Every structure is written in structure tokens, then in C-alpha cells.
């Protein structure tokens, strides 16, 4: 069975359309992030959250009213939402403050919250989970998260620059940053909290996107060796077409996993799965339309394969592979 058979789409012809589309998306995304903001999860922002399981499910409104009446200071900034499957009758209450960071008083806000719920006559309930993060820890987690992120990105890029050449690394950088920005814009639009899990998902997306890019680049590198007289543009186009089946199938199977996580993975993994879904789609798009386009733009329109292949060989740490037929013979003999 074949999804794509001997396609000859001219992907690079559409590169300016892609630049325009990405530009519009990125602009809209930036506006989104600036105006709507990116809600920080409790790990980063600090605060108090409790999850209460009720005997009889009260309406979210009733819980909010109870808190507004009984919580010291009125509690305007309290977020109340259903948690998990409705049949579990769980409610998440999040308060931006924590108790004093001295002695054991960090949990005072959590105690006040459950006391307020008790006074609200909402029926019997048990607090099945609490999370209280003081500002000091939140700040440290955020800093560490950013470091982890930047370091792993740099690591991947250094590897690509080492294995391929600078123009490829630049293409991969641009594609990866593009994916991260678009993913974050979607998180902001749908108002998902930026939690540690979501950060892990963004990192996964980064890995997925570079994975996709490397597969196409690998094919470009291989084709550059066998088709020296062809213009670079044609080689890149051919490589994208040759790997198109794999690109689409992999996007599909990864989406299967991500959608399964989104639908069945429970409340905690929902943000993770959503990020994956967005990231896989934009990651595939950027590998085809952004990464390869940047390589050709960087090296100029009329470069022939020969010139690129020569610099590729200089940059490549391993000797060029023997010709295609020869390597086949050797492989089949083993």
C-alpha cells in the first residue's frame, strides 16, 4: 500500500507562501502571548491548590460562592474548576497565595480554603490532594527549567552542525524555534497552564521536530553525493518527496499516541498531550517547509549540488559513502 508514490511536488516553490503563513502565525501568536499572557502553572508561579472529592457533586458556581463568602479577604483571584472525569466528583481550587515562608505556616492558605469549603455547606468532601509552592521554589524551578531547555536545544544544534554543516544547523534552529513559538502561542490561546509536564512536552516536540528535520537532511546529504550536477533546489525537492511517505506516516502514528493521551490520559497529562498534538503538526510542517527552505535560501538559489556536496564532505566527520550500487553489493553480501 502507498500513501504517496513517486511524488514530484515542488515544495520549494511554496517556500515564500510558507514564510508568509509562518510569519502570520508567529505574529498572531506573539500578539496572543502579549495580550492574553501565558498562565503559569503552580510549580512556577507559586500558590496553593487543593483537590477535593465531594460526596455529591456541587456546581462550580456553588463552590465559588462558598469561597467568596467564607474565604478571608473575599478570594476574588481563586480559580475553581472541575478536575478529571465528572463521575469522580472532584473539584480543583487554586489560590495564588501561600502562607508565610516561615516555620510550618506555608499551608495556612490551604487550611483556610478547606475551612471555607466546609462552611459553604457543600456536603461531605475529602481533600485528596494539595500542592503548595512557595515563591522561592517556584523561582528556582523556573530558572532550572529554562536552563534545561536552552542546554538541550544547544546540544542538539551542536550535533547537527557537527554531523552536517552550518546551513543545515541554521535550518534546524529556525525550524525548532518556529515550532516552539507556535506551540506556546496555541497554549496561550487555549489557556493551558505552563507546568513542568508541559515543559517536558515542549522538549519532546523539540526532539520530534529535529528528528523529522534530520531524516530529510540525511536524505539530502545522501542525494548530494550521487547527483552532483543537479541544482541544490532540485535535490532538496527530491529528498522531501522521497521521504514524504515516512514523514506523513510518522506524523500519523505519533498523533495516535498523543490523541490517546489527550483523551484517556487523565487530567494531569492533558496539557502534555495537547502540546504534543500541536507540536507534532507544526513540527512536520516546519521540517518540510521551513528547515529545507532555509537551507536553500542560505546557500543561494543557483548553487549546484556539486558545490554543496564538496562543503558537506569537508564538514562531515566521516568519509563519503561509496557509490550506491557498490554499497548495495556489500550490504547484500553480509
Amino acid at each position, binding site marked *: *500500500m*502507498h500513501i504517496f508514490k513517486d511524488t514530484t511536488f515542488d515544495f520549494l516553490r511554496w517556500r515564500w507562501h510558507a514564510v508568509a503563513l509562518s510569519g502570520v502565525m508567529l505574529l498572531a501568536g506573539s500578539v496572543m502571548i502579549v495580550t492574553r499572557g501565558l498562565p503559569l502553572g503552580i510549580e512556577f508561579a507559586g500558590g496553593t491548590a487543593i*483537590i477535593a472529592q465531594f460526596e455529591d457533586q456541587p456546581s462550580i458556581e456553588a463552590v465559588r460562592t462558598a469561597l467568596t463568602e467564607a474565604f478571608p479577604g473575599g478570594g476574588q483571584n481563586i480559580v475553581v474548576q472541575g478536575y478529571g472525569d465528572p463521575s469522580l466528583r472532584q473539584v480543583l481550587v487554586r489560590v495564588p497565595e501561600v502562607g508565610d*515562608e*516561615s516555620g*510550618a505556616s*506555608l499551608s495556612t492558605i*490551604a487550611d483556610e480554603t478547606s475551612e471555607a469549603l466546609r462552611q459553604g455547606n457543600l456536603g461531605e468532601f475529602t481533600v*485528596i*490532594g*494539595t*500542592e*503548595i*509552592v*512557595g515563591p*522561592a*521554589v517556584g523561582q528556582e*524551578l523556573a530558572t*532550572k*527549567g529554562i536552563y*534545561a531547555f536552552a542546554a*538541550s536545544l544547544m*546540544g*542538539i544544534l551542536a*550535533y*547537527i552542525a557537527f554531523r552536517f554543516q552550518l546551513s543545515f544547523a541554521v535550518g534546524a534552529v529556525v525550524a525548532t524555534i518556529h515550532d516552539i513559538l507556535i506551540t506556546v502561542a496555541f497554549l496561550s490561546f487555549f489557556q493551558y497552564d505552563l507546568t*513542568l*509536564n508541559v515543559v*517536558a512536552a515542549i*522538549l*519532546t516536540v*523539540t*526532539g520530534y521536530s*529535529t*528528528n523529522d528535520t*534530520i*531524516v530529510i537532511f*540525511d*536524505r539530502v546529504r545522501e542525494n548530494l553525493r550521487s547527483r552532483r550536477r543537479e541544482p541544490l533546489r532540485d535535490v532538496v525537492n527530491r529528498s522531501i518527496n522521497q521521504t514524504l*511517505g*515516512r514523514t506523513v506516516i*510518522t506524523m*500519523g*502514528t*505519533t498523533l*495516535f*499516541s*498523543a490523541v*490517546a*493521551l489527550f*483523551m*484517556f*490520559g*487523565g487530567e*494531569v*497529562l492533558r496539557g*502534555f498531550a495537547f502540546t504534543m498534538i500541536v507540536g507534532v503538526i507544526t513540527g512536520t510542517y516546519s521540517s518540510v517547509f521551513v528547515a529545507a527552505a532555509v537551507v536553500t535560501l542560505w546557500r543561494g538559489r543557483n548553487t549546484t549540488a556539486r558545490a554543496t556536496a564538496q562543503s558537506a564532505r569537508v564538514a562531515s566527520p566521516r568519509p563519503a559513502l561509496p557509490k550506491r550500487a557498490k554499497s*548495495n553489493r556489500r550490504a*547484500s553480501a*553480509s
Partner: protein
Amino acid sequence: MTLRTKLLIAAGVLIVFASVGVYPILASYFTLPISAALSDMQLKLGLDLKGGVHLVLRVQTDDALEVETETAMEVLREALRTAEITTTSIQTTSPVEFRVEGLSPEQEPGFRQAAAEADANFSRSPGVNGSYRFTMKPNVQLTLRSEAVDQARQTIERRVNELGVAEPSIAEQGADGDQILVQLPGVTDVARAKEIIRSTGLLELKIVEQGPSSTREALLVNGEPPANMEIVPGDGDAGGGAPGSTVYYLVPTVAAVTGRDLRTARQILDENNLPAVSFDLNQEGARKFGQVTGSNLGRQLAIILDNRVSSAPTIEGRITDRGRITGRYTSQEAQNLSLLLRSGALPAELTYLQEQTIGPSLGADSVRSGVIASLVGLLLIVVFMLVYYRMSGVNAIVALLFNLVILLGFMSYIGAVMTLPGIAGFVLTMGIGVDSNVLIFERIKEELEAQRGLRASINAGFSRVFLTLLDTHIAALIAAAFLFEFGTGPIRGFAVTLAIGMVSNLFTATFVSKSLFEFQLSRRRQATTLSI
């Protein structure tokens, strides 16, 4: 390598990893017979899946420095008294600094000699009018701080062990190295655990110099406590005052006997059948206690716990090795107190920075959702592979299952903890595993279409894609390494799963899957077509 060897290797790897990773889980689920060593290896669940308490505390290391500064100051004061050198004042100005003032010039040589002892840990700098400033040396500060954190960690460990928590995890963390992470799986009485962990648990026995008095002011001389004395509050009903009121005692700053001289402590019932705590002193403690009680017959002895007098009985005879703490304790309080005394005092105050409690039901929900999501994802992939790649799809599925078995087995073997992000790492590994097979199969199809012959096409598919796989997997490994190095908690769990998944996937996609193809070809020697 012959095909036979390859298949044997693959089968061997499968059996080893399955017996470490999969069998213990099945055995505990279906109660099958299993050896203790294997059952110990069963994959451990993290707090987010099992339920429990996660606490981050900060050790107020300034406290430990302050104690050191005060001790050094007292030593100097004593030395000056012996050498008959007078000063107008000696007092601390910060946790790491104290000042001596009003020294006459002719006494300075004697002063310098007396101060020599403090010089080891403090640097001395002269000021105007015969004043001197003693500042703790930076390297001493650093050592003391790290010792305080270390001691606090050990004390918490002892307390947690006394609480009887299975598989607790207690570790130092944080950029400044002054945080302690405490994870207590399965603990539900959070309030008690929190209280026991952070109670200082400092027991001091001191002779009462004056009091009890109903006001603090009555004990002051010229508006401040007499030299080397301090005022400590206590319960009104224990000191003869009105119930519920607070009374004050004047006691020496330096304790005759402290909790450090304790051998053990346990909960008992006193003569009124009320819960109390009895303690035994070690040899050194018994000697000091005997001396103090023997020379102070008829006076009151204050039993001070965390700077509050819990009782002040009159000394009726010389006591050496045993004492009793009474108060109006409940049985639980008496039990907690004896636990605290047994585990020793904390060197500094602790404050909570982060608390997370996951109820067991919440964790179980997460496990169920995670497993369902993984199975649904796996099923979708299996169906797709069978429809799209037909018989070759079976090879991919076998390789995929192989991969998951190795991943489970390896995680169990190294004692990695399965967390929710770890499950996500599982799902991602599954995705990349499928991708590897797709890459190979698409390449084989391409080679077949170029009329290269069946065997040559399969070989070319594997050998050409191998370099691509190497590149993608190394890139993912690099990312995982950085995530592990710089990340925290959940991110690290994700990184571990991803890294193991990458290595096992490279093995299954290239070695196992290829051996399966070769096996199929060996059965049909004249084959020219492939179901792909």
C-alpha cells in the same frame, strides 16, 4: 553471525528483560510464585502514581552560625574573666559577628592572648576606643552551613525511619544547597509527619535561678536579664499559676544537660496514669546530671523543650541516669515527643518551601488513565501497521513489544521510578520505535520499486537507514542527557525513560526487526515478493 545466533541472542535478551521487568508485575497482580530478589526489582511507582507526601524544606543555616558565634563569645568572656580583663560590653552584632568594646590600652596584650583561642574560626579586626570586631571566617561559615544541612538531613532520616515509612527519599537539593527534599510514599497523616519533621526537639535541663514569675519584667535587672541568664516561658499550671496562663523562669544560658546526652527515650504512664516521657542518659550525661542535681538539692530543675519549660520539679535527691518529662500530654503527643528525643535535635530551624500531597485514589486514577492511554495508542498503531504494511507490520509490532519489554526490564533493574511524565516518555518511545520501522520499510519499498531484488532491497533498507537512525537517536539522547542534568523531578523521570527507550529502540529496530526479516526469507528461499 549466523541467523541462528541472531535469533538466539534476541530470544535471550527478551527472556532476561521480561523476567526482570514484566514477570514481577504479573506475579504481584495474579499472585504467582516469585523469588524475593526478583520481586524486589519490581518497577517502583513515583509519588504522583502511588500517593504520598512531597516536601521541600529550607534549613535556616543562620541559626547554626549564630550558635557558633555565641559559643565563641562565651568562651572569650570566660577567658577574659579568668585573665581579669575588663570590658564595657561583649555582644553579637550579626549571626557571624560579635564585638568587644571598652578595652583599656594597657590590657590589650593580655586581651590578644586571651582572644587567641577564638582566632582559629574568627578573624579579629581592631576598631576605635579599644573595640574589636570578631567575624567568622568565610570558609568556616561555609563548612558550618553544609554541616547544618547534613545534620538536619540525618536527623530527618532518623525521624522518618522512626515513623516507619517504607522507601522514603530524603535528599539535599537547591542552588544554595540549603534545601532538603523529603518524599514519603503512602503517608496519609500529613499533619503529623510535617510536625515531627520540623520540630526542633531540643531538650535542655537547667537549674531555675528565679521564678516562676507571672511577668517577664519581674525577672529583669536594670531592664535586661542578668549576665549569662535568660528568661524562658512555661505553662502556668505546671508552675503554680492559673491554668492556661504563661509564667516565666530565669535560667542560665548554658544548659547543664542537653538532648545530646540522651541514650534513649520512651513513652510511659506516670503515677496519675497520664502519658509522659521517660529518658535515659548516657554515661557522660549521667555524670553531669548527678553533679548538678547533687549540688542543687531543694531547688527547681527546669525541663526545657524547644525553649519552653514543660515542667520544673523540685530536686529531692541526686539523680544520675534517668529522668521524666511530664506535661498534659495526650498519648500521641507523648509518643511524638519520645520519637523526637530519640532522633536527636535539629541543628537549625526548618521552614517549608513546598508541600504536595497526593491521595492514594488520585494516584490510582493517574495509573489507570496512563495505562489506558498507552494501550489505546498501542492498539491504534498495531492496527495501522498491520493494515499498511501487512505481514511486515507483524515484524514491526514484534520489535515494538520487544522495545517496551526491554524498557520495562531496564527501568526495574536500575531501580528507576515510574512517574506520570515517565509514562509520557513511554508513549514517545513507542512513537519513535514505530518511526524507525516506518523509515526502514519505506526505504525497502523504494529499493524494491527500483528493481533491486528482494534480499538486496531488505539489506539496503536496513543499512542505509541505520545512519539516519543513529543521527536521530543520538540527537534525542543528547537532549535527554541535558534534561537529566539540568531538570528537576518530573523532567528527570521523563529523561531517564526517553534515554533507555532510545538505546533499546536502536537495538530492536535494527537487530531484532532485521533478524525477523531474515528468518522469513530463510523459510522461502525462492521468494521474490514481500508482503510490505
